[in-house]
C-alpha cells in the first residue's frame, strides 16, 4: 500500500486520482499507524513552503523517522522541496533535512512561475525513470527550486535558462519538482515505477 500524506495542501486529490488510475493500492491519511504500515509514502504539496511545513506539524518527525529507518518516500513539487534543509520562500523555514541543500527562488530575468512542459534528461541509473528512455517531458509549475548540496544525491536536470534540478534520489528518498500526476503517460509511468520500488522494498 502507498500512503499519500493528507495535510491540507493542494494536489493531494490529483495524486490519489493518478494512483487509482494505474491500479495502485492507495490510502490518504496522516495517521502514525498508517505511516508505519505503508510500503511507501508520497508527500504531495502545492502550497508555500512555510505553510506546508506548518501543516505537516508533528507528522514531519514521524515521516523522517520512517524514512531514516528505510521507508521509501517520494516528494512531489513542494513535497520535494520539503526534503531539503531550508527554504527562503517568504522568510526562512526549516525543512525535513533529509537531503542536504536549500530551496531558493528561480533567478530573476526568467518568467516565473516556471510553468509548462520541460524536458528532463535522466542519468541511466535513476530507478524512478526506468523504461522511459533517456529523456522525457514533464509538467512544472513552481517559483522556487531546490538545489542539492549532498554528495550522496543523484540529480537529473532540466534546462530553464540554467540547469534546474528537476528530480533527486538519495537511497530510498526520491523527489520530483515536476508533477508526475499531471504529466500524461510519462508521469503515470514514473508513478508505476515508484509503486514497483515500494513493492520491492515492502
Amino acid at each position, binding site marked *: 500500500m502507498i500512503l499519500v500524506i493528507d495535510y491540507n*495542501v*493542494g*494536489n493531494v*486529490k*490529483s495524486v490519489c*486520482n*493518478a494512483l*487509482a*488510475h494505474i491500479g495502485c493500492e492507495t490510502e490518504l491519511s496522516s495517521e502514525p499507524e498508517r505511516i508505519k504500515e505503508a510500503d511507501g509514502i508520497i508527500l504531495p504539496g*502545492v*502550497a*508555500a513552503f512555510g505553510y506546508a511545513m506548518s501543516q505537516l506539524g508533528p507528522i514531519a518527525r514521524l515521516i523522517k523517522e520512517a524514512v531514516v529507518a528505510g521507508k521509501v518516500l517520494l516528494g512531489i513539487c513542494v513535497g520535494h522541496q520539503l526534503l531539503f534543509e531550508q527554504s527562503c520562500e517568504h522568510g526562512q523555514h526549516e525543512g525535513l533535512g533529509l537531503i542536504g541543500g536549500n530551496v531558493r527562488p528561480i533567478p530573476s530575468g526568467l*518568467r*516565473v*512561475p*516556471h*510553468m*509548462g*512542459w*520541460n*524536458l528532463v534528461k535522466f542519468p541511466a541509473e535513476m530507478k524512478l525513470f526506468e523504461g522511459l528512455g533517456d529523456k522525457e*517531458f514533464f*509538467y*512544472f*509549475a*513552481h*517559483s522556487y527550486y531546490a538545489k542539492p548540496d549532498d554528495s550522496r544525491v543523484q540529480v537529473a536536470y532540466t*534546462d*530553464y535558462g540554467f540547469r534546474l534540478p528537476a528530480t533527486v534520489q538519495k537511497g530510498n528518498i526520491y523527489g520530483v519538482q515536476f*508533477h508526475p*500526476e*499531471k*504529466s*500524461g*503517460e510519462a*508521469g*503515470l509511468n514514473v508513478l508505476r515505477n515508484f509503486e514497483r520500488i515500494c513493492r520491492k522494498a515492502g
Partner: protein
Amino acid sequence: MLTKRVIPCLDVKDNRVVKGVSFVNLRDAGDPVELGAQYSRAGADELVFLDITATIRSRKTIVELVERVAENVFIPFTVGGGIRTAGEVDLLLRSGAEKVSVNTAAVQNPRLITKAAERFGNQCVVLAIDARRCEKDESRWQVCIKSGSEPTDLDAVEWAARAEKLGAGEILLTSMDADGTKAGYDVELTAAVADAVNIPVIASGGAGSLDSMVHVLKEGKADAVLAASIFHYGEYTIKDVKDYLAENHIPVRR
C-alpha cells in the same frame, strides 16, 4: 528548454460542451470528460474549461465536472467562468483543477486575486482579461467585463501588470477584436502585455491559421496559444499545430 503550450478551450453549459466538435470515434461529442481525455491523448499540453452559463445553479455541476475530469485526465487543466469568491476558487482547486481563472470578479474586487493566491500559491490563479482596442486611442486596449459586454476604464496592459503584483500566476489574454474572426491573434496586444509582466501569457482570440500561432508565439512573445473552434471543427489537429510550430523552430512537446 520550456516548450510553448497548445491549449484547447472547451465551453461548457449544463455539463455539455457547446461548440461543435468533430472528433472521429467519439461516442459522445458533448461530454467534456471524454473530449478532454481525447485532447489529452492527441497531445494537448493543457485544457481550459469555461462555464459559460456561470449561474449559481451551474456552479454545482461545474464542481462535479472538475471532479470527473480530474479522475480521468492526467494533464493540467484550468476552470473558469463566473467565479466570484476565494471560497469558490478553493472548492474548484480541491475538486481537482490545477488552476482557476477569474475575470469580472477580479476587476470588481482585485483583493480576490491575492486571497486566492495566498492559499495554494500564485501558480493556480489565472487572470483572464478580455481586451479590445480603444476607439479614442488606438495605441491602447481597454478591459471589458461580463463576458466582454461591459467596457471599463482599465487599461489592459496596466491591469495585467497590477494583477501580477496582486498574485496572479498567469494571464489568459483574449483579444475581443480578434475573437471569432479567425483573422489571427492580436500580436501587438499580446506583446504589449507579455513585455509588461514576468508571468506567462496565454494568447487567445482569433486563432485561424497556423502562421498566426507562430506569430503570436514569436513576435507576440506568448507562452501558450489557446484555441477552440479550429480544434473542435477539426480544421487542425493538435499534431498539425505542433508539427508546424516545430518546423518554425518553436519548442513544443511531441
